[in-house]
């Protein structure tokens, strides 16, 4: 899902060429395996392994940081968990737990950076294929995910516009003056998107 990050250098490195399905399965397997790692030495090896994978993909430390950075919003929560762990199991185990979380996010970010959205959606569509027998529509489920990815920056831009309008009128701190236009704008955007999908033959 390269769209969430700066443009991926598609096709350049080894990791880009692995299919989305195997990559997602690999991510699952690595994540489960990581849960079993308890020792500081093991977690250090995991950190080195992820760094090596980034290097293999031709991605530098900056790309790695950009994937892990959003975690800072969760720092209070992570710190609270770490503090409780510290108290319960000691500083070493708390450090292992926290590092494991960062490694997991970095690993998932690596898949994001090296896989085109359509490839992920294609893999998902194939995986959901059997659900067709119970009346589900895998193609539509995949489309919903694509729309969600596409809508994140659109809503981000909308929020910026609303905040600017708010600032222009000197109402920065009024939560309602921010939320109402944002929700109304999002609903209008959804209407327009529905119309566009119909025009492009979604329901035909």
């Amino acid at each position, binding site marked *: 899902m*390269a769209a969430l990050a700066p443009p991926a250098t598609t096709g350049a490195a080894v990791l880009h060429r692995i299919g989305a399905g195997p990559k997602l399965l690999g991510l699952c397997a690595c994540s489960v395996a990581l849960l079993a790692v308890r020792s500081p030495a093991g977690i250090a090896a995991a950190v080195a392994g992820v760094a090596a994978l980034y290097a293999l993909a031709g991605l530098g430390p900056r790309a790695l940081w950009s994937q892990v950075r959003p975690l800072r919003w969760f720092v209070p929560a992570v710190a609270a968990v770490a503090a409780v762990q510290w108290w319960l199991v000691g500083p070493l185990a708390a450090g292992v737990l926290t590092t494991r979380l960062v490694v997991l996010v970095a690993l998932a970010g690596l898949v994001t950076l090296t896989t085109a959205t359509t490839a992920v959606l294609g893999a998902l569509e194939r995986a959901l294929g059997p659900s067709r027998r119970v009346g589900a529509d895998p193609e539509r489920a995949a489309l919903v995910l694509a729309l969600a990815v*596409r809508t994140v920056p659109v809503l981000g831009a909308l929020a910026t516009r609303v905040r600017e309008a708010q600032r222009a009128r000197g109402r920065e701190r009024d939560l309602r003056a921010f939320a109402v236009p944002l929700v109304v704008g999002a609903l209008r955007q959804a209407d327009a998107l529905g119309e566009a999908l119909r025009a492009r*033959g979604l329901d035909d």
Partner: protein
Amino acid sequence: MRVALDDVHVRLGGRDVLRGVTLEITERRVAVIGANGSGKSTLARLLNGLVLPTSGRVLVDGLDTRRRGRDVRRRVGFVFADPDAQIVMPTVAEDVAYSLRRSGLSKRQVAARVVAELERQGLADHADHPAHLLSGGQKQLLALSSVLAADPRLVVADEPTTLLDLRHARAVTERFAALEQHVVLVTHALDLVAGFDRVLVVDDGRVAVDDVPEVAVPAYRRLMGC
């Protein structure tokens, strides 16, 4: 290409938006102008079956939009004012490819078509970029590329340059002018319609003037009192 409206009335939300429109369109370049709320956007949406007539009927190459909506939409592409609402896929090439998803083409053929279409619109360098990083004008060109990839015979555009700056508006207008397809363009930019074959002036739910630009545009100005 022949589009026919036969005494079309449209009632939306308790308001008569169109009140008895009968038209036959065969020209390659047709512009629709009119005040806000006059019904011109609804008129445009009738042409691909996005809006169905409350009474009367719309035929596109003999196909009724009410019963053959799917076939009509294959023939008629639609470009909206806000390209952000129209781009459904996260990256540029993926959005164009979405138009070809049921074309029966192989993966390689789809990729080739996408590249060709993006090259034509000057977007080839952006193929793998996220759509939200494009400028407003580039987004509108992407929306046009995605519509053209499906190979329609008629392109309907509802104020495609309204949100664009002068330079991008001109670029988008030039692309429209160069299309081999038939075009129905809804616009407020009166200077854009000079080269068109026919101009419809919509006023209060009816086609008030139906003539060449030299006659229709001055008539519209008189109608608006400016």
